[in-house]
């Protein structure tokens, strides 16, 4: 067990929480009075100078705490790396959280190679995006509130990745969902933003429902929800027949439902494109780099369980591949720059699931990392474009921006090359690793390779379409907008540049053996993560070895083929959007049905609206109006009415005339006496 600097692990999530508190105080006591319409002119004027200084303070605190968290996380990871590979696991128990009988779940953090990768990505990319946000949100009135949410997100996300048990992971899991809700709906006065936030939360809850049930099954099977215990017991229990394949399949499928919700996979992907209503840095941080990859992390974390359920693995791989190609095709026709990127994110997440599904967890996490770099960059770049164009998001009203915003263009172009899988850029290494594994792994198949490669071609196409429409050609901007086009401030371009560097060179962390082996360059990434997956599941290591049996020539050949497909996509994009710009409209006119269906995202949202939302609301309305108010209350009120009407009839006997009462008294007495007399006479 390593310790020393690692004892500061709790600081990693605690620092952003500190930011939440500090910024929260500023938001509540300094910013709120400034925003109130009722605050009146005098106090507003008085508060202005004051306002500026509090904004500076927020601008330092928010990125500062995240940066500090990154430094602490980095120190912890370095300290962890000093230990031998087998000892690279550190658990820090803070306090018991829920204890009821046999059930215990402490608040405890675990740092191992997997969570350290996640923690570094989250804090690192998170820090850059915080810095970027300072520039991007500089005109925002609710500046402090924004950073409260953003810091809160960092806190929840770090809880998620550092938790040492499923329950605590679930806390982070729902916590990031909450922050996503708050940030998507940040501009809550906009109806569509508020709607999108709610949609994201509710769809995520569907996934959480699966996660929750999986957790119950895990606890009642393993008697614990702590990773170490569950994974240690998994082989034992499956050996003695307690953990049947069916049970393992049930657990993992439910977990996958959770992952599909959070990571926007079919059929729960619908919330992610709508989530683009949030501020762009939020899209970059939450809906590209970190939160949406939580599902991948969860599956990789639970690899020991997933490997016991081959059926689930197949489902994960198929859903991943299907999502990858499905959303890539939607990306082709979108005109909103952020929506293209959103569908691209869904598609790339599909790759990661594909990797996990074929047992290549390392490749999945590797792609997660490189994707965090280049997709965050793409979003931030698009944010920079939107910023430059005073809020315009429609690519049809852009064009020719190359010279006007050079830094943005260059960095975004680098990211585009990375995502398109051009050799040498980070995306190439990670994506190709996935393609190769989906072909060669014992759980893979050539069909998966074909689908994934086709999706890669489409990706290259729509990404270059985006670049061509935005930066090349002639300007289609509104003249009014064009006047104000400007490159972004350094707070925005600096993070772009750093991410661009990472997007370019990030891939060299995990050079495939077939390429690096010749030069004696090891696959650093795989080496780092290997203990986790070997410890969790010897089978995974076995599968990886099996893959190595295929010939290097085949691997190189497939690699070349996929690069060729990507180049074809790029070429097609060049042909349609640079060389023959009238073609796309022609195609749309020629096949209106196909174009319409794709343009409307296959009408999936409409289908859900019709099949689920409307039916549930109508059914609920019927339950209330008919069942509750008419049926149940009908019985209740009916009983009361029977009593009332009976009373109403009997009341008539009480005429209110005293003589009448006296007469009936007399009559009664006479009858009674008569009866007694009669009885005595008869006897």
């Amino acid at each position, binding site marked *: 067990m390593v310790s020393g600097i690692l004892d500061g692990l709790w600081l990693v999530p605690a620092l952003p929480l500190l930011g939440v508190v500090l910024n929260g105080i500023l938001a509540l006591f300094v910013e709120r009075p400034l925003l109130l319409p009722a605050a009146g002119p005098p106090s507003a004027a008085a508060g202005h100078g004051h306002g500026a200084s509090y904004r500076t303070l927020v601008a330092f605190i928010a990125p500062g705490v995240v940066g500090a968290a990154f430094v602490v996380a980095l120190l912890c990871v370095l300290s962890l790396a000093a230990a031998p590979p087998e000892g690279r696991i550190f658990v820090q128990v803070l306090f018991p959280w829920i204890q009821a009988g046999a059930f215990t779940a402490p608040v405890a953090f675990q740092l191992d190679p997997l969570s350290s990768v996640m923690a570094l990505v989250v804090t690192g990319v998170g820090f850059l995006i915080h810095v970027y946000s300072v520039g991007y949100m500089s005109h925002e009135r609710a500046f402090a509130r924004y950073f409260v949410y953003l810091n809160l997100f960092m806190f929840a996300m770090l809880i998620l990745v550092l938790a040492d048990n499923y329950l605590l992971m679930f806390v982070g899991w729902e916590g990031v969902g909450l922050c996503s809700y708050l940030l998507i709906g940040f501009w809550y006065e906009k109806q569509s933003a508020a709607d999108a936030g709610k949609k994201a939360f509710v769809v995520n809850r569907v996934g959480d429902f699966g996660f929750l049930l999986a957790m119950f099954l895990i606890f009642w099977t393993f008697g614990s929800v702590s990773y170490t215990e569950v994974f240690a017991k998994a082989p034992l229990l499956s050996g003695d027949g307690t953990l049947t394949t069916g049970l393992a399949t049930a657990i993992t499928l439910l977990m996958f439902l959770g992952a599909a919700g959070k990571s926007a996979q079919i059929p729960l992907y619908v919330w992610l494109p709508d989530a683009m209503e949030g501020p762009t840095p939020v899209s970059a941080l939450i809906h590209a780099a970190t939160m949406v990859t939580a599902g991948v992390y969860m599956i990789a974390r639970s690899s020991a369980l997933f490997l016991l359920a081959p059926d689930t693995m197949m489902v994960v791989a198929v859903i991943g591949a299907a999502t990858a190609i499905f959303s890539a095709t939607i990306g082709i026709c979108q005109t909103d720059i952020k929506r293209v990127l959103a569908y691209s994110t869904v598609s790339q997440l599909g790759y990661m699931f594909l990797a996990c599904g074929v047992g290549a967890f390392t490749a999945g996490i590797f792609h997660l990392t490189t994707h965090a770099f280049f997709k965050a960059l793409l979003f931030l770049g698009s944010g920079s474009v939107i910023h430059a164009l005073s809020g315009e998001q429609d690519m049809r009203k852009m064009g020719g921006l190359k010279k006007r915003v050079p830094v943005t263009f260059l960095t975004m172009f680098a990211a585009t090359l990375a995502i398109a899988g051009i050799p040498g850029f980070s995306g190439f290494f990670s994506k190709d690793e996935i393609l190769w594994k989906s072909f060669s792994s014992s759980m893979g198949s050539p069909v998966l390779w074909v689908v994934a490669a086709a999706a890669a071609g489409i990706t290259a196409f729509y990404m270059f379409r985006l670049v061509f429409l935005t930066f090349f050609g002639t300007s289609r901007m509104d003249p009014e907008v064009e006047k104000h086009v400007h490159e972004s401030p350094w707070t925005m371009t600096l993070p772009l540049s750093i991410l661009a560097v990472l997007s370019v060179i990030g891939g060299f962390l995990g050079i495939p053996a077939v390429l690096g082996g010749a030069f004696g360059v090891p696959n650093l990434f795989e080496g780092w993560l290997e203990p986790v997956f070997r410890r969790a599941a010897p089978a995974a290591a076995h599968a990886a070895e099996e893959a190595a049996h295929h010939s290097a020539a085949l691997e190189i050949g497939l690699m070349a083929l996929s690069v060729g497909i990507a180049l074809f996509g790029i070429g097609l994009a060049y042909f349609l959007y640079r060389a023959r710009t009238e073609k796309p409209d022609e195609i749309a006119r020629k096949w209106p049905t196909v174009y319409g269906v794709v343009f409307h995202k296959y009408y999936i949202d409409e289908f859900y609206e019709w099949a689920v939302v409307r039916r549930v609301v109508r059914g609920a309305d019927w339950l209330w109006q008919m069942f509750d108010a008419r049926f149940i209350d009908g019985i209740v009120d009916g009983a009361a009415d029977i009593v009332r009407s009976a009373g109403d009839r009997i009341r008539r006997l*009480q005429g*209110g*005339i*005293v*003589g009448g009462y*006296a007469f009936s008294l007399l009559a009664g007495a006479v009858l009674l006496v008569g009866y007694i007399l009669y009885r005595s006479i008869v006897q």
Partner: protein
Amino acid sequence: MVEPSAYLLLSAILFCIGVVGVVMRRNVLIILMSVELMLNGVNVAFVAAGSYLGDVAGGIFAFMVMTVAAAEAAVGLALLIALYRLKETIDVTELRILKW
């Protein structure tokens, strides 16, 4: 010595006059007086039976009834006055405020 049956007959006659008065008359004052008559009819029976059986309980009961009758008359007349002030009538057929 008068036959005991004669006392009982007197008692019955008094009681019946009272009953008829209560049932037939509409003036509350008369009704109250009729009630007194009924009570006195019963008193006669009590006293007669007590004397015949040589038991003082009959007499005691008669006193008891007289006390109750006095109280009843007091309360009844008070109500009557209150009613008259309220409705300006003591005709029972007019007093139907219980029924709405």
